[in-house]
């Protein structure tokens, strides 16, 4: 595999292989010096056209654990500000001799365009509303770690599915692994068409919560009010927020997940975010190991992880 653009590049077997590989990197993280030389001499650049602290840091940490060199192309202080086109920027970066571009962009499809322009590997770190495959992989890893697997598991994804790259990648990944997925959202926050999506839809979170093994909350953005998708965030919280009372509807073993950053008090109550069943910080920790596995899979051909 040369690029990781979409979860559908992997399929069930690919996802499982990656999760197995992630186990090795979780082990690396527990070492006194959490570093292996697997990608020594490889150059990984992060090209982020949108602000992101956690994803960018997570990728950089993952690359460093593999001894790769990392570069960070910050759009806000760069030639992009001077009007350089995406293609010129990418070609300039490639001319510096890099092996992998980790890209985030506000427009869907940009990682595909970049992959068609360069020889380097491209990792999609989020493209518009479309996909965020490494987030889905770390979500899968976390669920497998906590619940042992996906067979017969029921997962509710709650919130702004329409505008969510996390939701699109998670739906592909969770269903590929055998879980059943229910999207819970007001109709304005669902994609206009769900043709080809192997999911159920509900507009009643109270009815869904007692049945699920995982409730996955999406970040609710404030501008959805001004776009007339919601009357108010208050009304959203009242009808779809995971309040303290609603959290009591969950089964004993059910997990609460969130891709971050959270809007405490909007899609999730502060107390709920801090409950033991909430594995949100576990997701972040697993993110580094999963991204190490992705980088190793794309760039580490022939090298031995345990050198």
């Amino acid at each position: 595999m040369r690029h990781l653009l979409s979860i559908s590049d992997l399929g069930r077997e690919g996802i499982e292989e990656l999760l197995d590989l992630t186990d090795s990197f979780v082990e690396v993280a527990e070492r006194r010096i959490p570093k292996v030389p697997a990608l020594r001499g490889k150059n990984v650049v992060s090209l982020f056209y949108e602000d992101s602290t956690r994803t960018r840091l997570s990728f950089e940490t993952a690359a460093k654990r593999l001894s790769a060199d990392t570069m960070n192309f910050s759009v806000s202080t760069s030639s992009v500000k001077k009007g350089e086109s995406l293609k010129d920027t990418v070609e300039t970066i490639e001319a510096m001799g890099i092996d992998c571009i980790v890209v985030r962009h506000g427009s869907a499809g940009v990682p595909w365009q970049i992959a068609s322009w360069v020889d380097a590997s491209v990792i999609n770190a989020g493209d518009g509303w479309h996909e965020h495959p490494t987030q889905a992989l770390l979500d899968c890893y976390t669920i497998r770690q906590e619940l042992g697997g996906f067979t017969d598991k029921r997962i509710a994804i709650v919130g702004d599915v329409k505008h969510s790259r996390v939701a699109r990648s998670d739906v592909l990944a969770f269903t590929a692994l055998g879980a059943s997925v229910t999207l819970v959202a007001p109709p304005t926050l669902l994609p206009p068409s769900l043709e080809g999506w192997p999911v159920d839809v509900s507009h009643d979170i109270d009815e869904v919560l007692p049945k699920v093994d995982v409730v996955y909350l999406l970040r609710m953005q404030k501008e959805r009010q001004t776009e007339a998708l919601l009357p108010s965030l208050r009304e959203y919280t009242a009808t779809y927020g995971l309040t303290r009372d609603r959290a009591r509807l969950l089964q004993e073993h059910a997990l609460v997940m969130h891709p971050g950053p959270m809007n405490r008090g909007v899609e999730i109550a502060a107390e709920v975010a801090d409950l033991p069943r909430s594995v949100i910080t576990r997701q972040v920790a697993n993110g580094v190991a999963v991204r190490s596995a992705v980088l190793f899979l794309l760039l580490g051909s022939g090298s031995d992880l345990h050198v």
Partner: protein
Amino acid sequence: MSELVLKGGRVVDASGTREADVAIDAEGRIAAIGPNLDGDRVVDCGGCVVAPGLVDIHTHLREPGREEAETIETGSRAAALGGYTAVVAMPNTEPAIDSAGIVREVLDLGAKALCDVRPAGAITVGREGERLAPLAEMAALGVRLFTDDGTGVQDSRLMRRALEYASSLGVVLAQHCEDAGLAAGGHMHEGEWSSRLGIPGVPAEAEELMVQRDIALCRLTGAPVHFLHLSTARSVELVRQAKADGLPVTAEAAPHHFTLTHEVVQGYDPVFKVNPPLRTLVDVEAVAIGLADGTIDAVATDHAPHSQEAKEQPFDEAPPGMLGLETALALTLERFPVERALALLSWQPARVAQLAGEHGAVAEGRPANLCVIDPTATWSVDPEKLASKSRNTPYAGRTMTGRVRHTFLRGEPVVLDGEAQR
């Protein structure tokens, strides 16, 4: 004896099909049509169809203002190679064709072109949808079609006034049907693929709402309305009903709307971004049926050149539009028998654009605006070999059947054996 004889071809126009030679006189008029004609110069048309030159009611030539994408010269060369002898140049130039001065500029540049270039005028000043442009002043210079293409006239009251005002000028108003509010922010057809790809969509209803409104305004004012680039099944049905009701409406459709579906967007290549967007298979088939049954009068290219830089942007930042002049004939022949294809590409659009006196017929005494088509020749689309200044064809690598061999503009061979002569 005539100057030039097109020998051995099959002549096809609105009056039918016959095996005949066509002789052209020194004034560039058709002197004779019949068997065994002789001339100073003979052009072999064996195995070919000799047809009236094609007429495109919807071409973006980009001049003035966007000459990096196309000029009247390069666009007219692409047109001639595609078999066209007349194109209507859309007014969304910079500045817009919204005054007598700009009309004159385009006419002057068009006088040297490889096909007739007839500017369309804007309905409103600057295509801003706020004040009526000087329609009478432009009509006096020969403008016969007015449109704010690229955008629809949103204000229903203003559109009503425009139709009423135009009704005394003998011109037709053409609408780019798109409700701006409903379409806002969209970059492809809203549906299965936009949802999956995470690209904001434009619902079919954004087009249909304005088709419906303008049919109502046509009924109210009695003024003719031409619908540009219809792309949805329900738009076609609305126009079918309006025609059945006897309203003076005409319509066109672009080759990509009966050839490609929204599924091709999945690779995120902005070459497939176009407005109206590529739609579902149901829409594609409905457009083809509308063209076959006479609901839609014409195939129009909506030839919309864009520079490489413009099309190498992210999908939602790239401008909409695709090339069409050099591929329209083959794509229409892919769908329809040659007589029907030529009706849709030549004499029917000539009538809509009020160019039927000069274009759209093979008849003695008429200007020799002709194209000679080899309907069985196959070729592969190579963007680098197109005459357009831009490369944004969605058909790169596609094998086409049917190719223009010669094009004559008032008797002048502007294309011979597939090569532009100037």
